[in-house]
């Protein structure tokens, strides 16, 4: 029983982080039509910034805020320096087919990932570091048993929930959110409606940068910080986003928790070596059986 509960609890707390990573991916996919494979690289980079500040005895919360802001700036920079020039080039003969149009940004994002990882290597990678939590991380006691579930885990879940509510409200309840959705869904009609789609794209990269930066800050305490720390989170986050439906915010969060539990149960009742296989199986199963995911809308995009 204790082991079962522990599997549930650690699955939930990891799931919250996967949810956040998935949310970041969905934000850029919805806002700019790009799956950003550099996302967790950006998160890693901003976590290093936070870690450096904390190392210089600044408070956690200052470092936290600075990391989120730099996450936003980094996201915007990625868009302005690479993705926007790329979308302008869409008339070139290498980008004229839909297949290549969706492939080229993926390749570009891998290049960005490479730059961020090697950059972090140059700046910071001589030593391995940990990363602190803002609140105490002693396990919750249930019936005299300490569970792998801490105040920090609650903090993470709370943060994910708040992020979900804010982003959902932003998209559904504000004009800016509507403009962002419109530009992603149909750039031409959006432009004819007077929406500055370039700015909207940049904005979604910015918001996603903040969300991923948040994911980085929250996931790193349970691992160690190194340039490639968060690669795995990207892969799990992607799978979570696909499971939930790549265009659904709520779906991505549900997908994140589902993946967290799945991985936790594979880990506890099978073996950690099977985690990657389990991820692959789930991903393929969803894509082949229900390609739009749990909550994705069917007609949005062919996978």
């Amino acid at each position: 029983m204790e082991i079962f509960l522990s599997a549930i609890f650690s699955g939930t707390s990891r799931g919250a982080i996967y949810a956040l990573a998935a949310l970041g991916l969905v934000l850029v996919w919805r806002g700019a039509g790009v799956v950003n494979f550099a996302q967790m690289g950006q998160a890693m980079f901003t976590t290093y910034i936070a870690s450096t500040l904390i190392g210089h005895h600044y408070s956690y919360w200052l470092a936290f805020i600075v990391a989120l802001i730099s996450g936003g700036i980094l996201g915007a920079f990625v868009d302005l320096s690479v993705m926007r020039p790329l979308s302008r080039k869409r008339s070139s003969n290498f980008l004229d087919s839909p297949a290549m149009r969706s492939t080229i940004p993926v390749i570009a994002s891998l290049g960005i990932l490479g730059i961020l990882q090697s950059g972090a290597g140059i700046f910071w990678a001589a030593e391995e570091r940990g990363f602190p939590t803002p609140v105490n991380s002693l396990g919750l006691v249930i019936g005299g048993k300490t569970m792998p579930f801490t105040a920090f885990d609650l903090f993470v879940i709370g943060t994910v929930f708040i992020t979900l509510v804010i982003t959902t409200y932003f998209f559904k309840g504000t004009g800016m959110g509507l403009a962002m959705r419109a530009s992603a869904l149909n750039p031409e009609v959006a432009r004819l409606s007077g929406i500055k789609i370039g700015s909207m794209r940049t904005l979604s990269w910015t918001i996603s940068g903040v969300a991923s930066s948040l994911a980085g800050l929250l996931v790193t305490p349970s691992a160690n910080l190194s340039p490639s720390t968060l690669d795995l989170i990207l892969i799990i986050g992607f799978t979570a986003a696909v499971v939930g439906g790549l265009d659904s915010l709520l779906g991505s969060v549900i997908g994140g928790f589902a993946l967290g539990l799945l991985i936790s149960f594979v880990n506890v009742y099978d073996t950690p070596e099977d985690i990657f296989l389990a991820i692959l199986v789930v991903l393929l199963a969803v894509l082949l059986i229900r390609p739009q995911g749990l909550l994705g809308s069917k007609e949005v995009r062919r996978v």
Partner: protein
Amino acid sequence: MALVAGVAVSSLAVTALPATAATDPGVTSSEIVLGMQLPQSGPASPGYNKVDDAARAYFDYVNSKGGIYGRKVRLEVRDDQYKAGLTVSSASSLINKDKVFAFIGSIGTQTHISVISDINRRGIPDLFVNSGYSGFYTNPKTYPTTFAGLGTYVVESKIVGKYIKDTYPTKKVGILYQTDDFGRNALQGFTTAGLSFEAKKTAVNFIAGTQGSIGLASQLTALKANGVEIVIIAAVASATAIAVATAAQLGYKPDKWVVTSVGADATTFQTILGSKGVTPAVSAGMLAGIISASHAPSPGDTTDEYVAAFKKINDDFNKGPDKRWDNNVLQGMNIAYMATEALFGTGSNLTRKGIISYIENNGSKMSSAALSPLGYSRTSHEAFTAFWIGAYDGATVLKPITGTRVLYTTDSGTGPVTVSNYMRPALPADAIAKGA
């Protein structure tokens, strides 16, 4: 089975080696070139990336004292990122471009195995490899030029396993091991030593290190739920730190933690926890009482003459990005120290065959910072065959557990664990051993 193809090629080629005069590559009248392969970037690099700088610092020290028979030692280092595909290329670069005389201190079982056959086939000395995989050393006919730079995992597990069985005969013993060759080798070693584990209950594994330490909390909960009182951790130092910290969060306080020597590094332990906001005083408290085995003195034991001398050399000569004194630095220095000794011992007419034969014949008499005897002989290329059991005190120093240090020795086969009376040779005045 896996090694069969390699064997056939290597044994064939070695007999065909030309008789070498003093014209082996990498040796001139003024210079000896050595090569080292290790992960300097990428996920596996933290910690290990200090070994080359430490070794180079020692060689620079030797050079500042006039070198070896007037020859300065130059250490060429290649980053293989812990990817075997790159190890092959970087070995070729060291052999063909830098024309190294010998390899020293290459790090990693899974990387080194990709080049060991080729290095041996060419008759290049492959000195003091930083891998505890006994398959490299126990049969010199297979890898005639390869010598260990660590005690084997099997020897260590047998010694620690026997200690646990003798000291805590009634306690429930469990193991937390990382999911890779090192973790599995350790599990196997402790099983050989007579400890028995039950998968998923008292033997649990996790994905360690920078990939996010997946499942650590659940695995520790499993150990806790199954009433494990003695927990052996077989993981790299950073993952060990995270494991101990996670257990504390879970309120899991086993009677004893036992950490393998690979994972027992006080500096890494404190650095990792320090960057998580744990003060040095608290992390020292977490470390206190943890049992580990070592073939070397504790890096924190500055009363040890080797430690003191090496630390001074490190301060003066290390130009690496992170030169903080720890096990990795001590190990790097010690390998360079032993290499220097062997180079001196071989004589001014330095050849590859010469140095191999010197280590095979005189290796067991060589000195090193290690408190353990060296197992080098014509029939075995194992390095440290003895370990002493210690526990960390409150000041992060590994101290002999019974007050006086007892060395236990055994082999990588099925031989018994016995007490060793080995006495380490004293450190030469200039901290440079000149060989027999």
